């Protein structure tokens, strides 16, 4: 049985008050303690440039939205990084690995760019990594190009990112990769001829909509309608009603992770759209662990295409999930696996270069790299520096009382379809 996810405990309360005897250090707690100490001596000491050290470690600037609406994505990504380092040590090719975490507070490219600059200029970072959000990655891309710094995108999923700097490599996913697979599969093996699409009205949503519709039509399907929903949208009932009015055979959904997946899932049930009768296809966020838990039985039968789930059946993934749970008391998700694989890529590339951390050497080492990830076999396309991976077709089912995504089909070696 997996531990429950509640995070309330007395030691935590003590920790926040700065008490010394908070006896359990759980994720993030050490930051808090440090910040308590540093709060006092804030401006005096912290502004001084760090002195150069004799044994230069390899510094990885980890830029992500640690606070704000997207905080959890970064927390999970960070967990993946921490787990990898715990398992593989913090020294590679004789050099110590040091992570410097920087918070963008949200999709702020200007902040991300500044942080990247500061990391390169002041902290002497050798590698930039992280980026749960596309604007962050795009903001830092220029710095990577100009400073010739190796940059590992561990989540941000807009296709164009890797084209912004020759030193960028992506280990996560691209939305077209996932949604195009969804479109093709649904129109062929899925057996749907007509589809209605519902996407969030922002960049990733439009990417997903475009890729799905293109693939669905190319495979002989027909799009009977589409709707774009505001990003800040707490209530989906009206959009679902619109979909229902058309009585579609299948529906494709894209909403960002967070509060919306469960909300839209419940709204489907409330409007009596039954996933067992209407094929509701989505990308993985819409049926992530929390969303499925919140939906309960209502989620049964929901289809999705995705590259990673903690229920993926492989020895490697079982070990990964177990270790992750032991460390962080929760299941990994695609952010976590992104962080984990990103660190793996960095470690392996450094091994290849013998600890040389300049951008040219690292990107050369990374190109074409192949390895077994908890999500299955993955590789880096030497031409586009983008991820090539298996995309799984899943259905929400009840397995031994738990409601989970079950992989029942897959498409191997999927590249991003939009890179030329």
């Amino acid at each position, binding site marked *: 049985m997996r531990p*429950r996810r509640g*995070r309330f405990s007395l030691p935590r309360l003590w920790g926040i008050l700065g008490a010394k005897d908070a006896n359990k250090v759980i994720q993030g707690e050490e930051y808090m303690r440090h910040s308590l100490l540093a709060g006092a001596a804030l401006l005096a000491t912290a502004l001084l440039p760090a002195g150069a050290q004799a044994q230069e470690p390899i510094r990885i600037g980890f830029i992500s939205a640690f606070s704000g609406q997207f905080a959890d994505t970064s927390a999970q990504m960070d967990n993946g990084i921490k787990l990898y380092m715990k398992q593989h040590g913090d020294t590679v090719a004789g050099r110590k690995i040091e992570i410097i975490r920087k918070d963008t507070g949200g999709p702020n490219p200007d902040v991300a760019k500044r942080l990247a600059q500061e990391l390169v200029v002041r902290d002497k970072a050798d590698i930039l990594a992280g980026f749960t959000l596309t604007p962050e990655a795009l903001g830092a891309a220029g710095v990577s190009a100009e400073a010739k710094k190796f940059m590992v995108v561990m989540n941000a999923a807009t296709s164009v990112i890797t084209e912004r700097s020759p030193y960028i490599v992506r280990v996560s996913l691209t939305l077209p990769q996932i949604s195009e697979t969804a479109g093709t599969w649904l129109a062929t093996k899925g057996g749907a001829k007509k589809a209605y699409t519902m996407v969030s009205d922002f960049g990733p949503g439009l990417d997903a909509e475009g890729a799905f519709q293109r693939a669905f039509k190319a495979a002989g399907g027909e799009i009977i309608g589409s709707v774009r929903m505001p990003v800040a949208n707490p209530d989906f009932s009206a959009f679902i009603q619109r979909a229902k009015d058309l009585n579609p055979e299948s529906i494709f959904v894209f909403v960002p992770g967070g509060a919306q997946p469960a*909300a839209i899932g419940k709204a489907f049930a409330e409007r009596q759209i039954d996933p067992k009768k209407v094929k509701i296809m989505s990308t993985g966020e819409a049926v992530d662990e929390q969303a499925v838990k919140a939906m309960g039985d209502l989620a049964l039968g929901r289809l999705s295409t995705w590259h990673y789930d903690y229920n993926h059946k492989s020895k490697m993934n079982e070990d990964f999930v177990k270790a992750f749970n032991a460390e962080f008391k929760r299941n990994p998700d695609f952010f976590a696996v992104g962080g984990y694989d990103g660190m793996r890529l960095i470690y392996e590339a450094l091994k290849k270069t013998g600890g040389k951390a300049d951008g040219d050497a690292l990107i050369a080492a990374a190109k074409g790299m192949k390895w077994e990830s908890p999500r299955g076999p993955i590789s880096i396309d030497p031409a586009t520096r983008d991820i090539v991976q298996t995309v799984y077709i899943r259905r929400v089912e009840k397995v031994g009382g738990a409601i989970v995504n079950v992989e029942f089909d897959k498409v191997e070696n999927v590249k991003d379809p939009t890179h030329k």
Partner: protein
Amino acid sequence: MLPPVFGVLFDGIAYGMLLFVLSVGLSVTLGLMNFVNLAHCAFAMLGGYVTVTLVNELQWPFLATLPVSFLAAAAASVVLERLFYRRLYRASDLDQVLLTIGFAFISVAAAAYVFGTIQQPIQTPPFLRGSTGFLGLGLSNYRMFLVGIALVVTLLLVAGLEYTRFGAQVRAAVDNQRMARGLGIDVDRTFAVTFALGSGLAGLGGSLAIDIVGLDPSFAFTYLVYVLIIVSVGGLGSIVGSFAAACLIGISDVAGKYYAPELGAFLIYLVMVAVLMWKPAGLFGRR
């Protein structure tokens, strides 16, 4: 058989009711005490986390947690009122804004620390899941429950304010503080109780909101804008005003998305700006 428009209306009202429960407390405190409490949604978030903790950790039934979340938020607000807010009743609006935004910041970090940044799932009891058919409309059980709670809250509030001596004292104090004091009414105590009541309702709203909009530490800010919209459109200090504004905003949001999804995100802001330009004090504002 009813056409879908009734379903849309129902959903709009239900969504409005959620906003109503979340915001009516702020309307009361802002209207009565003239205190700009931007930490209002932090109390709502507290209520939400109380419910999530009780349900997920201690296996309490969902309904039983609702009064607890009310009390927890009310109690927390009393502490803050005693220690901080009370000293700033006469301070400038801007100082109040800075103080309460400070508390909202603190609440966000504290929630992230204690409960993690993760979305908190909640399993409502089976009878609140799914929907019930009614003349061809599928009415969501939870939304019916929400409407029911909101009506009960409204009735209790209106009854409490209209038919009890305490309610009369609150109204008297709002009408004319000086005269109320002159008759021996302890206006400060009256307001403190009102403040606790308002925050408690926010806590209740937070608990009720989880099933529809989820719960994570950014809740304290995400819903602040909606709450402010309801309060200003309804008119400060008016329960009926908040109720009407919540219905208006809820219905226009849902109906806008249904009939003109391109306008979906603009509509509630447009409605707010239009209402305020027409009636600067809000629909039921006093001033």
